[in-house]
């Protein structure tokens, strides 16, 4: 029974990784940029939730849509100010621009509000329950289901709407897309907006039970990179399944050894994947 519990816990956390990874893979798929500041976007969203909870008394679940909108605008802003000018730049310049954002946002939050951990005071989703011998922590389950719902919406948007298909066209071949009348610049801006908005929702969902501090994003974004590698860089569906695998590996590994070492299994998994199947588990060789 304990093993069933570990697997269920792994899937619950994996769905959140899946949502974080989808946003990451989206930017990579469309622009070939690895955004190392993705976790910092999530951290900023968590601070937004914290301050809305303290200042306006809004539960993170209620403020999630507002956070998604604000983060969308933030993503577009980052595109306009930084990412847009990196399209033709070398891989090193692209990576260092996002490394720079990682340092900058971590240090900025530290400067503004110190390194203290902060927790959202009262929550709608609290407590726990058990079904059929399995134990569930309500806020974690709510976050997990919320992440799944957001992932489905993102998936629907990209594959079933005209804008989403235009976005895929811009990713596939920008020049042809431009000839067909797609405004690629707007599509790139949309990509950054969507990526930031989805990771913002993940942050909002997590802030119902996780404390917020400047480095909180790293532990979620780095495993999400592994999820992206598992799914094949640039694949949204792949990133989703990759996220669940990462959640399972982290939880099972942490259970088998010590929670302190759970990330080691995830990092090891990255090396295994890229050395044995560089195009991901589902990708073609």
């Amino acid at each position: 029974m304990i093993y069933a519990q570990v697997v269920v816990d792994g899937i619950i956390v994996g769905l959140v990784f899946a949502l974080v990874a989808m946003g990451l893979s989206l930017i990579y798929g469309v622009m070939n940029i690895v955004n190392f500041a993705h976790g910092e976007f999530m951290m900023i969203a968590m601070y937004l939730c914290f301050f809305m909870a303290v200042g306006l008394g809004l539960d993170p679940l209620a403020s999630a849509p507002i956070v998604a909108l604000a983060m969308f605008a933030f993503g577009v802003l980052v595109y306009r100010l930084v990412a847009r000018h990196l399209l033709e730049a070398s891989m090193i310049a692209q990576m260092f621009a996002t490394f720079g954002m990682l340092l900058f946002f971590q240090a900025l939050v530290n400067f503004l509000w110190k390194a203290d951990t902060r927790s959202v005071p009262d929550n709608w989703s609290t407590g726990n329950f058990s079904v059929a011998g399995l134990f569930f922590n309500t806020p974690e389950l709510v976050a997990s289901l919320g992440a799944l719902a957001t992932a489905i919406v993102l998936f629907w948007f990209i594959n079933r709407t005209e804008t989403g298909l235009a976005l895929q066209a811009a990713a596939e071949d920008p020049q042809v897309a431009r000839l067909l009348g797609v405004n690629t610049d707007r599509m790139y801006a949309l990509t950054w907006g969507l990526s930031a908005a989805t990771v913002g929702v993940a942050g909002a969902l997590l802030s119902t039970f996780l404390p917020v501090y400047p480095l909180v994003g790293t532990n979620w974004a780095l495993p999400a990179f592994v999820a992206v590698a598992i799914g094949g860089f640039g694949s949204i569906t792949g990133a989703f399944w990759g996220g669940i695998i990462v959640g399972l590996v982290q939880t099972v590994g942490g259970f088998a050894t010590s929670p302190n070492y759970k990330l080691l299994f995830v990092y090891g998994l990255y090396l295994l994947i890229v050395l044995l199947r560089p195009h991901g588990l589902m990708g073609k060789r």
Partner: protein
Amino acid sequence: MRFAPAVLIVLLAAYPLVATLPFPQHIVIMALLFATMGTAWNILGGLAGQVSIGHAVYFGIGAYTAAYFYKHFALSALATWPLALLISTAASVVIGLPTFRLRGHYFVLASVFIMQAVYVIVSNSATLGAGIGLELPVYRAKDWTDALWHLQFRDSKLPFYYAALVLFVAALGTFEWIRRRRLGLILTAVREEEDAARSLGVDTMRYKLVALIVSAAFTTLCGMFYAHYVQYVEPISTTSLVVSIEIAFIAIFGGIGTVWGPTLAAFVIIPLTELLRAYLSGRIAIGLAGTLQDGGLLAYLKYYAAGGGGQIDLLIYGLIIILIARFQPRGMLGFFRRLD
């Protein structure tokens, strides 16, 4: 121009005799340390084109070897450096063999994850002091040979200054020596056209490993230097992602693959951040002391004017990285290249 390096070394050697106060000496010591690490990184990243964001692993190997053996056996880096270099070489081979098969962002991410894995292991290892780290005990030397053996000089920063200068000159010399030899040509071929080099029968893995071993060795020695100089070693300031980014960025900021780029960058960035840190650290203490308890906008303004919660040096650092990547991706030497 032929004598420029010699003139620079003489100027650097004369500097602490003119600037006798500890703080100006400290700034140049830190600049020399980062110039050495940037130059060492440049052997692998600049010449061979392998962008490693995991060099803090080797910095950590040096720092922790020095701290551990000094703390428990009173053996300073003068005795333990061969061991540290042995560990660093073994680590280079173990890390290099799998990761050098990867290209582009696959390689960069692999270096990041190995870095993070080492961070997790070190910050959970009781032997290495876990998250708190290791302190190198203070020792009162009887005479100067005793002080030298323990690498503890209470009244003067000069020994550390000249040690840093020697490390720096050695790293710069090694970089230039490799660049002009056959090895340098092969590394450039690996960077520009790896597949072509391999099709000509060049064992590219072997040369990449050599570049990494040399690069890691200097970084390890810098870690040992740092441990004795600061007398305190903890995971976040030695073997973390932030330190890895700092090391790589020194080389990239100056101009990747250039001889003088990392040095130029270190002597611009390090004084800037050290001065900011020193200027603000005093004010931050005041800022944190109580202004916030008064509440109100004015209190917050006072708090931020006093440096807020700190890390303003990293704030500036991050901003510079973004701006350079955005406006001058070829690095600072790119500014000068435009002129000719």
